[in-house]
């Protein structure tokens, strides 16, 4: 599974996964997280620059995963949501917290740094951002 064990890939994605470094197009204002090198609206690369996202936003849909894909078995059940970030784009993320049964569309969230998964006893421990519901 490439995303689990590829060191070069993981290294490339660190800024965007840990610090929510995305991009924006200075020409049309579109924002991208995950970052895009090419603005798909303007169809250009020259106007695309770095943008750090706050990670704050609101839940637009959610689910609770009860049957996990390989590598995530020990975390079930866990909640995943699509979050509309305040800057204006959506992202998928896990929702942490004691009561995953009590998530609502419209709940506000903030990012929290968490362990995503471990690639076996000797492999990479991958971290990333999950989201916590704001009180």
């Amino acid at each position, binding site marked *: 599974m490439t995303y689990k064990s590829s060191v070069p890939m993981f290294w490339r994605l660190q800024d965007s996964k840990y610090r929510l470094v995305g991009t924006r197009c200075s020409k049309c204002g579109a924002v991208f997280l995950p970052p895009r090198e090419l603005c798909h609206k303007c169809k250009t690369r020259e106007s695309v620059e770095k943008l750090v996202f706050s990670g704050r936003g609101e839940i637009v849909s959610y689910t609770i995963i009860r049957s996990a*894909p390989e590598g995530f078995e020990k975390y079930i059940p866990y909640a995943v*949501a699509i979050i509309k970030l305040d800057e204006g784009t959506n992202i*998928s993320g896990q929702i942490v917290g004691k009561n995953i049964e009590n998530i609502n569309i419209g709940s506000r969230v903030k990012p929290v740094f968490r362990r995503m998964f471990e690639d076996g006893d000797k492999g990479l421990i991958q971290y990333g951002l999950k989201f916590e519901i704001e009180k």
Partner: protein
Amino acid sequence: MKKVAVIGIGQTKFGEHWDKSLRDLSTEAGALAVHDANLNVKDIQAMYIGNMSAGRFVSQEHLSSLAADQSGLLPIPSTRCEAACASSALAFREAYLSILSGQYDIVVAAGAEKMTDIKGETAAAALMGAADQEWESAIGLTFVGLYALLTRAHMQKYGTTRDQLSLVSINNHRNGALNEKAQFPYEITKEQVLKSPMIADPLRLLDCSPITDGASAVILASEEAAKRFEKPVWIAGSGQASDALALHDRSSLTELNATKVAAKMAYEQAGLRPENIDFAEVHDCFSINEILAIEDLGFCEKGSGGKFVEDDKIARNGEKPINPTGGLKSIGHPVGATGVRQIADVVRQLRGDYGKLQVNKSDIGLALNIGGSGATAAVHILRRNL
């Protein structure tokens, strides 16, 4: 535009085939199609193969060559098409376009997938190759999870209910119970759906199509070549469209824009409207996707898909039969094979040859094949007479 027909169809039984490999299933489907067409294999000029992930399921790539080789068709040109679960509808469309181009007269389009040689969790992870690897798969989403996100959004916006979702699976099984090629040829009840384990809220096991092995093949012919064959069924319209790979990048969570665009292309080419379609094979990988299909194909107003199902218009003897042979839920979903299987089923209905599974009105049929969480859609409309 030139006319192209389907002149032969074949499908293996779908299910868990411990005793059959990918190549066994593919050659079986191809042989059935050739036999059905009563064709001399030497007349086949090219092959298009749909398969999503033989590399991860059975460590086999280069399927184009494998298929031509195993079928005894060397040295004809052979090409693999991949768009996750829409792989073989794309293979069918490429085969169609290759004949329209004037390059060939007789072409095979086939689809196959062998999913059960590995354990379930590995298969689920391989299927997530159809989603955004870095930003959906990597955060622990599954395909059930992606469609669960679509389900909840649809329920929130349109009031689609748990019972309406159950009716989709119940109807598909009611049809599939009569389909000798189905993986699960038996009826299910509402109670069974509600008691089945929750996989990703709110989708339960019986909302989900299974992991399956299987293959299907069809043979296409130009108008001139089709004259030699007994049962040509004509391609009236073909459409294909793409959308953002990641669900979170879509402009709407309550419709699949790729379906709408592909359907518009196909309807326009065919000179037809949604009300002209007599029956449809749609992509019920999860129950919500049948409700979305009914809406996005224009069979009802946006948001009323649940009610359409509740009113039983989708029954095999109903006003607009949907998945009259069982759908992905009952027949099974060997991902790369489904697109061509749907076409083969539409063709057989249009021939009037489907016995207990025959729909009453069968002059114009439609097949919708979706890739991933809606990132690819292919729509084909076929007619008894053009």
